[in-house]
């Protein structure tokens, strides 16, 4: 079989840190070769080296047996390498067609020949089954369609080697099926694909070969047909993984927070709530399932006091909440793991220690004179205890929090939010973007909090997570609650249908 790409002894250094160290990797024509690894294993860095966004510190790249030096993404495009990034590289203010022809150097002339380009793109989209409306703006199309645009963009530039960086992370189950058929089609046309993922199931489904990366190094390359999920998982995390099942809570207590016919921005299907009623009780996890963007963000903001309901009643610990701010909710012992940890949960440029104590600046254990003077020593000691207790891995407490990995950032938030032993914990996508180890940790910690009597509202787009952890499940669709289900032996079929609005 002929090899089209070989990367030899690739290393990439950022400061003192090796994101990639001595990596060997190759791709053959017409195969799907998966790069498997946890977050921070160096998959994205390796691919950014391949497409010329990063320059490798050491190592060489061979394309079709010839040594190449890829200096810029433009050159990678010319060499027939196309990448579909995890965060899409689409200009939102432009149309699908404008995005596809962006930067195109094959045709001379000052003006855009719309008709000719359209014909060419439509031909491609038909050949690979990638249907898109060329005149639609990127902001108006779904995430799945945006991904098709990205693939089309790469093909339009004549990509022979396509890199798909965690392509299923943002897709619904149906869209994932669609992606699989596109991949099959691409393979049959002789294109090669590098598939990046950390989900075992899909890796075994689509790959011909799998290369496992761990901590920036290549661990092993395997034929997909000769391995199984367990072996891959163990190689990936470097230790034995035990499957787990959480015990569901039997008895629950008084409701901590109740929503009665709450509406907010009712007209919007994707950013509003429409007549939502629910209650979260002591010692239970109420899971909110649903495809992202069906009002979950608004729900989480209302139950944490960030925004106020426009209609209906919110009752927190028996008091009606009408004019309360987020600070009042915190006072009432409500904790929040926000949906976007970088934007809402942490202050990126502040240190780990400072982020841990963001909510405790008035606590007299850490300051004198009503917060005018901080007790640095007490803060440090506290932070060090948290570091040990929550297994936060960082170089020092003085490190800027944005330089930590996603999993460790989330642990900082957990430490801050759970140390107060909250009465209500609102956790929104608590494991999004985390690797297996960190996910497991976050979930265990939340179950532990529940067992201590905390009421937990778990909002997640990860259906498996909701099923695994919830004692009761509700489904949200277009701002409405579609139904409530038991967390014990949940009716999966019915819940899936409810998620699709049926």
């Amino acid at each position, binding site marked *: 079989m002929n090899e089209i790409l070989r990367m030899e002894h690739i290393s990439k250094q*950022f400061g003192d840190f090796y994101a990639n160290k001595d990596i060997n990797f190759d791709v053959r024509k017409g195969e799907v070769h998966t790069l498997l690894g946890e977050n921070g294993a160096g998959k994205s860095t390796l691919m950014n080296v391949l*497409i010329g*966004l*990063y*320059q490798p510190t050491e190592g060489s790249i061979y394309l079709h047996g010839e040594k190449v030096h890829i200096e*810029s*993404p*433009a050159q990678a*495009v*010319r060499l027939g390498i196309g*990448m579909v*990034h995890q965060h899409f*590289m*689409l*200009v*939102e*203010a*432009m149309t699908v067609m*404008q995005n596809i*022809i*962006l*930067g*195109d*150097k094959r*045709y001379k*002339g*000052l*003006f*855009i020949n719309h008709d000719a380009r359209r014909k060419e793109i439509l031909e491609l989209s038909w050949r690979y089954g990638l249907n898109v409306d060329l005149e639609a703006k990127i902001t108006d199309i779904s995430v799945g369609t945006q991904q098709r645009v990205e693939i089309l*963009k790469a093909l339009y*530039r004549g990509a022979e080697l396509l890199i798909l960086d965690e392509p299923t992370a943002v897709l619904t189950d149906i869209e994932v099926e669609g992606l699989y058929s596109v991949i099959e089609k691409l393979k049959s046309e002789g294109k090669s694909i590098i598939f990046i993922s950390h989900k075992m199931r899909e890796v075994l489904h689509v790959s011909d070969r799998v290369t496992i990366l761990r901590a920036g190094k290549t661990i092993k390359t395997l034929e997909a047909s000769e391995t199984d999920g367990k072996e891959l998982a163990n190689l990936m995390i470097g230790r034995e993984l035990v499957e787990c099942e959480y015990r569901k809570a039997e008895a629950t207590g008084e409701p901590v927070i109740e929503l009665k016919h709450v509406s907010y921005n009712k007209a919007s299907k994707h950013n509003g709530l429409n007549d939502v009623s629910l209650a979260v009780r002591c010692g239970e996890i109420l899971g909110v399932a649903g495809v992202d963007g069906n009002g979950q963000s608004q729900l989480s903001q209302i139950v944490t006091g960030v925004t106020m309901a426009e209609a209906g009643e919110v009752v927190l610990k028996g008091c009606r909440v009408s004019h309360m701010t987020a600070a009042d909710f915190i006072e009432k012992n409500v904790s929040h793991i926000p949906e976007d940890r970088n934007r809402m949960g942490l202050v990126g440029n502040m240190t780990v220690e400072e982020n841990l104590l963001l909510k405790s600046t008035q606590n007299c254990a850490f300051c004198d004179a009503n917060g005018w003077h901080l007790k640095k020593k007490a803060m440090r000691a506290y932070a060090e205890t948290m570091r040990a207790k929550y297994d936060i891995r960082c170089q020092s407490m003085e490190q800027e929090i944005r330089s930590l990995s996603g999993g460790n950032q989330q642990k900082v938030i957990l430490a801050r939010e759970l140390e107060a032993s909250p009465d209500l914990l609102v956790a929104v996508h608590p494991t999004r973007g985390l690797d297996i180890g960190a996910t497991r940790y976050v979930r265990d910690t939340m179950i532990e909090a529940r067992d201590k009597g905390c009421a937990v509202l778990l909002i997640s787009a990860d259906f498996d997570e909701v099923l695994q952890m919830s004692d009761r499940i509700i489904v949200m669709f277009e701002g409405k609650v579609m139904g409530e289900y038991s967390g014990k032996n949940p009716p999966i079929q019915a819940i899936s249908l409810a998620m699709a609005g049926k």
Partner: protein
Amino acid sequence: MNWNLLSEVLISAVRMATPLLFVALAELYSERAGLVNIGLDGIMAFGSLVGFLVCFWTGNPFLGVLCGALGGVLVNMVYAFCTVTLAGQQIVYGMALNIFAPALASFIYRVVFGVSSTLAQATLMKTVSIPVLKDVPFLGKLLFDQTPMVYGVYLLVIVTAIYFNRTKSGLNYKAVGEYPKAAETMGINVVLHKYIACILCGFLAGMGGAYLTTCYVNTYSDGIVAGRGFIALAAVIFGRWSASGVLLACLLFGFFDAMQLRLQVGTDLIPYQLFQMIPYVMTLIALTIFGSKIAGPKSKGKPYYREER
């Protein structure tokens, strides 16, 4: 108000709008590549001095305008190097230009002419009438009896509109301001585009400055720019980052400027400073109404470095 008076105010409005238009277009090219340049006032001040000096020495206003524009490019290269190559904060370096460039201009002027009470005077650019068309009643004098600079700037508005809306190159240029990383992966040279944007911005803003000393008044004095750079900045926001919008916004601001001049002449009772406020007040009002909505190139104001993690 009779026809003559209206015509007079409108002609004056067109003349007032011209420097604004040059500078607003300069900012448009800059912001479309993601660079918010608040140093327009500084670039203009330097351009106006260079334009004046060259015009004074050679007696050729056209050469003056050209050199003023080149002077603007020179000054803006400081901004370009700091914000593009060093990926510094755009507002900081824009402000630095505002402080540094007018002071430099003032210094050079004093070195050349010394401190004296008499103002050096240079030749003004002559108007060029377009035969036949200029005799069209009302519109003739308004549109076809102006300096070549005025014709030039309107041509530039049209060219800019076509460039951004119709051409491949314009599409790529806009992508740099919207999402530079995406542009980079599409094989567009982001750094090159940003430098081109700075050259264009410096050139046009310098030209706008030189217009003041070669077409508007025939002398240079400190503070001649009088915040026009900031009004142009507002015009870009008001004009929703499009060439036609910028044209309308500048004409509107030019009109208010002309009106306040006219009103100053008309009355003794009200202090003229009150009228002088009008264009600035209108700028504030326009920004309050239109500036609040998030719009414009998405990555404007953000430094770009390729190997960011």
